[in-house]
């Protein structure tokens, strides 16, 4: 068990390191460095050189990389060449907003998908199960921004239940916060729930074919009871994997949803930074997003041995 933990933690550290090198390299060596990009293609060489000197861009790449990583380890993501303001507060404030969105969405997706998928598996041969499968197939094909637009049409413009855009921090008013949270969260969660439903269904179907379920049935348990007593924990493993992948997907999917609903999350900051040609901010935000994806993967891997004792003993 400690070996498993250690090797997994080491993998995480290596992946984080490689990702930081890749991100830094993409931002530094591709045509037009940060200063050039920030000033635009019409900038004079002197202006570019001046900006480079001001932010230490004329230093060798290795020095700049070490400064960047060293700063991040100390919680400092650097200074934007475009606005001249420090990047860290921007990231910290916006990532909280995105975290609320993403966590609520994955919770809602799981709450919808686990019962639906289980039901679809148990009722696999009749029309209810078939309908759930077909609906989930359609749901997967709907991009989250389309779901958002449809939800706004119905519940905001049509019924007037929720505001069509905007954001309010929970401390400014819980009611306003919740009202603005519903539509973005639902649009993110619906698509993920559709995908997750399919995986839950196939995981439950797999489990229902296992010998131990047959044994439980032979003992006289009903299918449902056999599943709940013996099967759910086994079905949980593939579902956790997929939910982890989805959490990462949601993080990036939130970029678009934040645009639709004008929510000041990290995705909005990323898009704004790209539009402003603010490469240093882009670099910092991308690093944060990739790090979060890697952390999610790590957590998923650490959950396996807790859910499945077989992995514990094998490792």
């Amino acid at each position, binding site marked *: 068990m400690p070996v498993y933990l250690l090797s997994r933690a080491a993998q995480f550290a290596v*992946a984080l390191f490689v990702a930081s090198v890749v*991100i830094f390299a*993409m931002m530094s060596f591709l045509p037009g460095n940060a200063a050039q990009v920030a000033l635009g293609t019409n900038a004079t060489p002197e202006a570019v050189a001046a900006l480079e000197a001001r932010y230490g861009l004329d230093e060798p790449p290795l020095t700049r990389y070490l400064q960047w990583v060293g700063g991040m380890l100390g919680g400092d993501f650097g200074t934007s060449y475009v606005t001249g303001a420090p990047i860290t507060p921007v990231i910290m404030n916006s990532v909280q907003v995105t975290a609320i969105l993403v966590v609520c969405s994955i919770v809602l997706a799981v709450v919808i998908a686990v019962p639906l998928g289980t039901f679809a598996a148990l009722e696999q041969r009749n029309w209810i199960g078939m309908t759930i499968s077909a609906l989930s*197939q359609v749901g*997967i*094909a709907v*991009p989250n921004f389309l779901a958002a637009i449809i939800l706004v049409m119905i519940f905001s413009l049509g019924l007037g239940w929720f505001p069509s855009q905007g954001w309010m921090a929970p401390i400014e008013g819980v009611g306003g916060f919740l009202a603005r949270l519903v539509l973005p969260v639902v649009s993110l969660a619906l698509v993920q729930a559709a995908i997750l439903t399919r995986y839950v269904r196939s995981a439950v179907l797999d489990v229902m*074919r296992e010998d131990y379920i047959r044994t439980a049935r032979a003992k006289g348990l009903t299918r449902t009871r056999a599943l709940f007593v013996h099967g759910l924990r086994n079905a949980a493993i593939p579902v956790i994997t997929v939910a982890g992948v989805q959490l990462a997907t949601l993080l990036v999917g939130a970029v678009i949803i934040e645009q639709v609903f004008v929510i000041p999350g990290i995705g909005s900051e990323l*898009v704004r930074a790209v539009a402003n040609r603010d490469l240093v901010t882009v670099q910092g935000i991308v690093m944060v997003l*990739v790090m979060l994806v890697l952390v999610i993967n790590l957590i998923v891997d650490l959950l396996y041995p807790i859910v499945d004792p077989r992995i514990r003993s094998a490792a």
Partner: protein
Amino acid sequence: MSEHQDQPFDPNLPVRVDDAGPATGPNAGPAIPQRGRGRRRLSASMIIGASLVVLVFALALLSFIWTPYDPSVIDPAARLQSSSLDHPLGTDRFGRDTLTWIMYGARITLLVGIVAVGIALLVGTPIGIIAALFAQYPWGMWIGAVIMRANDILLAFPALLLAIIFAAVFQPGTGPAMVAVGIAAIPGFARVARSGTMQVLSSEYVRAARASNRSTPAIAVVHVLPNIAGMVIVQASVAFAISVLAEAGLSFLGLGTQPPVPSWGRMLQESQQFLSTHPELALWPGLCIALAVLGFNLLGDGLRDRFDPKMEARGDG
């Protein structure tokens, strides 16, 4: 159907999970008649998926020969019209014909999908095969391991994120979007190719080929490639669906296909300001994106049923 007559059950009936094991013995499962049935009949998902994919291709190809209007023609007199005989799907805020734009949008959708999937397939498949081939030898195991670790790290960059980075570093546009989505799709192909290759390498006929002194590259080309082709095609269909979504999302953000080139994602984005008065402006491009993604997903499912009898015997979508 004559070959099935000696079977103890009707092959057209779905096999009940609970009966499968004991009735036919542990190793002589019901897979053989199931497979025969699958080869003969097209599944519903295959038919629907293939039809939708053909429809998108047809729209795009037709747009090269004929469209109702010129996509760039602005007609202020005909702005924001609903469906009519002149404009079957209505017009946008500049009076441009929506049907024409949908047809042109299909081109971009397919272009991005074909280039992105092409990149991922041509790079990812050999990487996966090589990783599996090296993993056979004690001296090459680390190469296989390093390749797959690199793959895992690339997985931490989802398609949309990589495409946004590319839009930041280069100019936002269709070109960088295609390449970024393609690179992000490489790990999927590498994984599929690797696990397929490992299966093939452990088979009897590869051992026979080895015994008759076939070189490793020859085995890869003669035995591995044809046998993993089915799985790779399934992956291509799924990756195509993902790239359609990524392109639409990116154009929706304004970081993909740039004006004045018509794209579904940007049509959807521009429709937002008219949601309360002209919801149909969002409806058509939205429907197109969803149907295209549905089509490629269903096609992938249908192909998987054909190429992977194990999945089919499970009666699973």
